[in-house]
């Protein structure tokens, strides 16, 4: 190792491999990092180009920003809750099914993942309208007297977002459940644990890391959602992403829009750190238990 020619050779190899990554680094740098940094810079500038904190003062003193923040969090948390309620039983069913059935169901789960977000949004628009399939079915079953307001509001945006995120939530949860040692479940059964006790204390506990990853994906993605609330929310649901677009299209206020963009980025970063902390803490607790 101390041979200088060997060390030089090693360094040259490192430089070579780094140069292999250079095109990707440059592309991501130019088309993603530079734009983000530019928005950061712009959020601290006046229209005339002078340094200021005015943009942040302006957005933080505006009620519109705060109501957008509340809507964003409400949408993200509700989507996450629905994904858990719908996704965990689905993952559990898949993990307990035979390989064949599980693979077939996985294809059904993956297909909507690759269908265009606009195709899916359109489908929900058609289903949830006043005279859509859901309302006509409910009425013909005699469950409702008049059509329920299911779309162009918070409910519509929530349904669309849950539908979009559900496959991304189910996949890591299913992967974690599939890896659970079946002998542990058998041992629990033979020791007399009932079905639900086994699910709660063994399966959900051991699948925790998968549930945490799935939750992180759902929460972080939904914070910045734009298309689904824009179409299914019908202008009444305005999370941060839509507030940014409005600020630009209505007021051409680039300073405020940039500051709002940074606010969104900070929320994503905080959410990411929180989930990593939760995962690390719970991982240690399970290992020490």
């Amino acid at each position: 190792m101390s041979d200088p020619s060997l060390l030089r050779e090693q360094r040259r190899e490192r430089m070579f491999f780094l140069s292999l990554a250079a095109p990707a680094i440059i592309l991501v740098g130019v088309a993603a990092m530079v734009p983000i940094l530019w928005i950061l810079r712009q959020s601290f500038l006046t229209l005339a180009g002078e340094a200021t904190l005015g943009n942040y003062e302006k957005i933080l003193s505006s009620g519109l920003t705060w109501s957008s923040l509340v809507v964003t969090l409400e949408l993200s948390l509700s989507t996450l809750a629905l994904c858990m309620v719908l996704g965990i039983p689905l993952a559990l069913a898949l993990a307990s099914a035979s390989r064949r059935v599980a693979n077939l169901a996985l294809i059904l789960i993956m297909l909507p993942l690759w269908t265009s977000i606009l195709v899916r949004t359109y489908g929900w628009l058609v289903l949830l309208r006043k005279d859509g399939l859901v309302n006509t079915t409910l009425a013909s079953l005699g469950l409702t007297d008049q059509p329920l307001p299911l779309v162009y509001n918070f409910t519509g945006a929530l349904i669309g977002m849950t539908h979009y995120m559900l496959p991304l939530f189910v996949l890591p949860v299913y992967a974690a459940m599939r890896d659970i040692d079946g002998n542990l479940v058998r041992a629990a059964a033979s020791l007399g644990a009932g079905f639900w006790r086994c699910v709660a204390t063994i399966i959900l506990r051991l699948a925790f890391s998968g549930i945490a990853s799935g939750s992180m994906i759902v929460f972080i993605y939904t914070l910045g959602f734009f298309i689904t609330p824009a179409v299914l929310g019908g202008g009444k649901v305005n999370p941060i992403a839509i507030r940014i677009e409005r600020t630009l299209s209505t007021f051409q206020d680039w300073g405020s829009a940039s500051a709002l963009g940074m606010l969104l980025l900070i929320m994503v970063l905080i959410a990411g750190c929180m989930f990593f902390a939760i995962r690390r803490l719970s991982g240690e607790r399970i290992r020490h238990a």
Partner: protein
Amino acid sequence: MLDAYHDSRLSRALIWTIASIVLMFLMLPTLIVVPLSFSASDLLEFPPKEWSLRWYETFFASAAWMAALKTSLMLGALTAVIAVPVAFLASIAINRLGFPLAGGVYAFLLTPSVTPGILLAIGLFVVLAKLGLIGSFIGVLAGHVTLAIPVAVVVLLPAVNRFDWQQAQAARSLGAAWSGVIGRIIAPQLSLSLVAAGLMAFLSSLDEAVISIFVANGPNTTLPKLMFISLRDQIDPTIAAISTLWTLFVGVVVLTLNMRTTNA
């Protein structure tokens, strides 16, 4: 996994009932669109009273929709052609560099996938405006390639990690240049993953809407942007026809890929 609970029929039935309903929930919006696309009526009545191909005719006869389709297909193809080789080389670098450089490169390349699309979109808008490239094909392409690189890296890195690197060392010790090792030994063995990465990159570009909404204009308007605009204004049944074609296309691609990879 739950075979020890054969006797808990009721609980298992409950889990499966929920699972079936959730699967229906996942399929429903994609499936509902198919019969509507063959309706003869302007209204979105279900089930349609009369059938026709008029919405498909409208789609293929419309210059605006056709231009958007062409733009989107070209963007998707070019995105895949650029993003896959670039991500392939980066994956090799990540595999070979070791701690801590590899982690840094990996995290850097994944940032576009965790950054909110709206932020990338307005940032790209400002940068392209400075360069006078707003609405240009190359501007949208840059955005799509950046989003496709993490997608391709996530597909390719596990394949590169599984590769038997002793082959590369053998070739190197026999005097092969790295370009030969990568091009003639690694790439052919990972051809399936490269194709998969290409399709994923293509589909990610085809479906990208937020960046397109901000930076794609005029003749470079993409299909998702045009769909977004017409969904905002009114519910146009032409979109049902486009949706059906889109789902059919992606379904065929994903199923073929699935069969190829499970057979291999």
